[in-house]
């Protein structure tokens, strides 16, 4: 089609939410006084004006088909006021202004198969990536892992009985788009990329692939008479950073791309500064369709945290109090030399004191 027949885009950018916001939110914008947590899945916010908003939060499958989306809209029209809000973790929230309207809304959501919960000190919906459904570099699936895990953790989503909130994330490669979490389940490749040297010259911008490597393990080479790239396998850390810009450097491996579990990522400033997650378990089989081994370890960690942490302690704070040696005991996971950091700044993670718990 000739350019003159093409429609120019309207560069409107990020839309103004005011037009889609619940009227009680608009009226009391910036004028909220306090909130309460009457029951799991429900929040009650009270404004200085005396107005109230009762929020009902529900978990969904996140990958919504239009039937499900319309069902969520039907519930919003019939039981709420036709407005919804989505949370960071893809939960849907409905707002009503009287307590009497809360239970019918909860019933409608649960009758339709959605799960009311995810508030306060619950295990929140797992925030996740795209996996085999849509990503170009995935080592595993995302939605399927999350569905399997949430099936097992549904009671912890429904009941707010953890010491504090628990954010779980999953990522289908080591770039970790899923992000930091109290518990993170991520792919960890264990073998260097397998290179199809016949394709590299045609597919990859070689200098930028060389530059992408965090440990300078990639160098240009002539292989089979063609320009290609080679990897110094003694240096390679199997991170997969070269694979997105150069698909012939296949890092994913049905056998050797494993799952690893990390704990203690916490982005709140409450009680302590934000923290990054730390490695606790690796070598877990990437085992579709249900990934039972990974789920079992997550449940072990959650059980120990629930039993051992004090009120308000997030996973990282609980471990800081009891110490890492005891953490490994409590969750019955092995401690290995691979837990010792080797990256820049590693020294800061060593124990340079006589602080030892017995």
């Amino acid at each position, binding site marked *: 089609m000739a350019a003159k027949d093409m429609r120019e885009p309207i560069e409107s950018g990020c839309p103004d939410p005011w037009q889609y916001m619940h009227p009680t939110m608009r009226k009391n914008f910036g004028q909220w006084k306090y*909130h309460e947590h009457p029951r799991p899945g429900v929040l009650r916010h009270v404004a200085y004006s005396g107005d109230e908003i009762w929020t009902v939060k529900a978990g969904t499958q996140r990958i919504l088909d239009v039937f499900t989306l319309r069902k969520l809209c039907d519930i919003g029209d019939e039981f709420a006021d036709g407005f*919804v809000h*989505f949370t960071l973790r893809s939960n849907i929230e409905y707002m009503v202004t009287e307590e009497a309207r809360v239970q019918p809304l909860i019933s409608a959501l649960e009758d339709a*198969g959605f799960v009311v919960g995810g508030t306060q000190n619950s295990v929140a919906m797992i925030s996740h990536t795209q996996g085999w459904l849509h990503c170009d570099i995935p080592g595993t*699936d995302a939605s399927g892992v999350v569905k399997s895990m949430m*099936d097992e953790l549904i009671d912890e989503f429904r009941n707010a009985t953890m010491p504090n909130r628990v954010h779980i994330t999953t990522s289908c490669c080591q770039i970790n788009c899923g992000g930091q979490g109290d518990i993170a389940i991520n792919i960890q490749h264990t073998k260097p990329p397998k290179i199809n040297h016949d394709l590299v010259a045609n597919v990859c911008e070689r200098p930028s692939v060389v530059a992408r490597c965090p440990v300078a393990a990639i160098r240009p080479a002539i292989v089979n008479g063609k320009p290609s790239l080679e990897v110094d396998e003694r240096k390679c850390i199997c991170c997969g950073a070269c694979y997105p810009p150069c698909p012939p450097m296949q890092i994913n491996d049905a056998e050797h791309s494993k799952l690893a579990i990390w704990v203690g990522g916490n982005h*709140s400033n409450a009680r302590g500064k934000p923290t990054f997650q730390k490695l606790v378990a690796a070598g877990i089989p990437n085992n*579709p369709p249900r990934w039972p081994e990974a789920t079992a370890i997550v449940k072990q960690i959650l059980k120990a945290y629930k039993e051992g942490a004090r009120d308000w302690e997030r996973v990282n704070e609980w471990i800081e109090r009891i110490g890492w040696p005891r953490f490994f005991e409590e969750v019955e996971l092995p401690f290995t030399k691979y837990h010792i950091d080797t990256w820049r700044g590693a020294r800061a993670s060593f124990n340079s004191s006589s602080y030892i718990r017995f």
Partner: protein
Amino acid sequence: MAIEKHHTPMLDQLETGPWPSFISGIKRLRDEHPEERINSMTNDLLGQLEHSYETRKGYWKGGTVSVFGYGGGIIPRFSEVGAAFPKSKEFHTLRVQPPAGNHYSTKMLRQLADSWEKHGSGLVTFHGQTGNIMFIGADTPATQHFFDEVNDYGWDLGGAGPCVRTAMSCVGSARCEMSCTNELKSHRMLVNNFTDDVHRPALPYKFKFKVSGCPNDCQNAIERSDFAVLGTWRDDMKVDQDEIKKYVKTKGRQYIIDNVITRCPTNALSLNDDDSIEVNNRDCVRCMHCLNVMPKALHPGDDKGVTILIGGKRTLKIGDLMGTVLVPFKKLETEEDYESMVELAETIIDFWAENGLEHERCGEMIERIGLANFLDGIGIEADPNMLAHPRQSSYIRLDGWDEAAEQWFERQSEQRAAG
């Protein structure tokens, strides 16, 4: 015409169990949607996904797809096994920017659903990790048709590639007593100032804005954005002593001591004998914990503003980085206040576009050139709030010390004079 359904024994197992199943949703599109195009597209999608489950490998490849006038905003996906699953061999995602704070009316959602099933697969996610509405599954011509339709009634594409990305902000002032700022306004002013940089990727790498209304940082701005805006306050927190006494009465003294007083990271709280509390506001770092425990009794102060941190990001390439405090406190009241924040973002992005290496995030550039050089580059003076502690290494030339110390005292007296 009935389609030949792929057998999906592994995916079928994801239809059992109590959590809502995305597989059941995709099957509904395959089995119940009136449009044959959607039936066969989702059928082949399930076929390819089952193949991934069997072989434990992904089969999508990227490429180049865009709408007229833009260079980004679409995540192109071409199947490597398209011969076996031809109806979903092109399965692109359109990233559409949500309204700031993710508020929707059902009317608007229905309108989007109607447009999407006309052109795409019928699968959509609210929202992806970057904060976009993800319309998953359209072939190349459909991306343009769908975009044209939704763009006409107020929606625009987000960022993909080395560009300013879609921004994110928490629910904030709309429904949260902790909010210290108008998140929506910061969110929209920042990202919409860079619309050109969102749609035409030409930066070293991605650049993300995220806004949280308070230091609880529900938007994960410090860990996941290059430019993090966090609401805060700088006067005294507000204390309703009667409500405090009610908490003590309800929960007991020990609970308040163990869960509030001793949890304060700077020991700024003490419980008086009459069950009121004492707050040493000079020591308070606004961590939010005591407000979280007693939201009825404690509130942010009146002199509200924001803290701005720069350079947060995920792993690639040098490892995870938290944002670093650049502006400890900034008032955001007048239009000029907001404009000066946008100007700061422009200055930072310009400096980084000029000095960042290819595929180097802003925080990685700061790591490489040093924070002091970055501050020089963007014309901001060093401030002790930017650091956890001053330098440990004595390996530095200090021959400009006297001059720098002089400047510090000058700035101090200027600030005192300005009140």
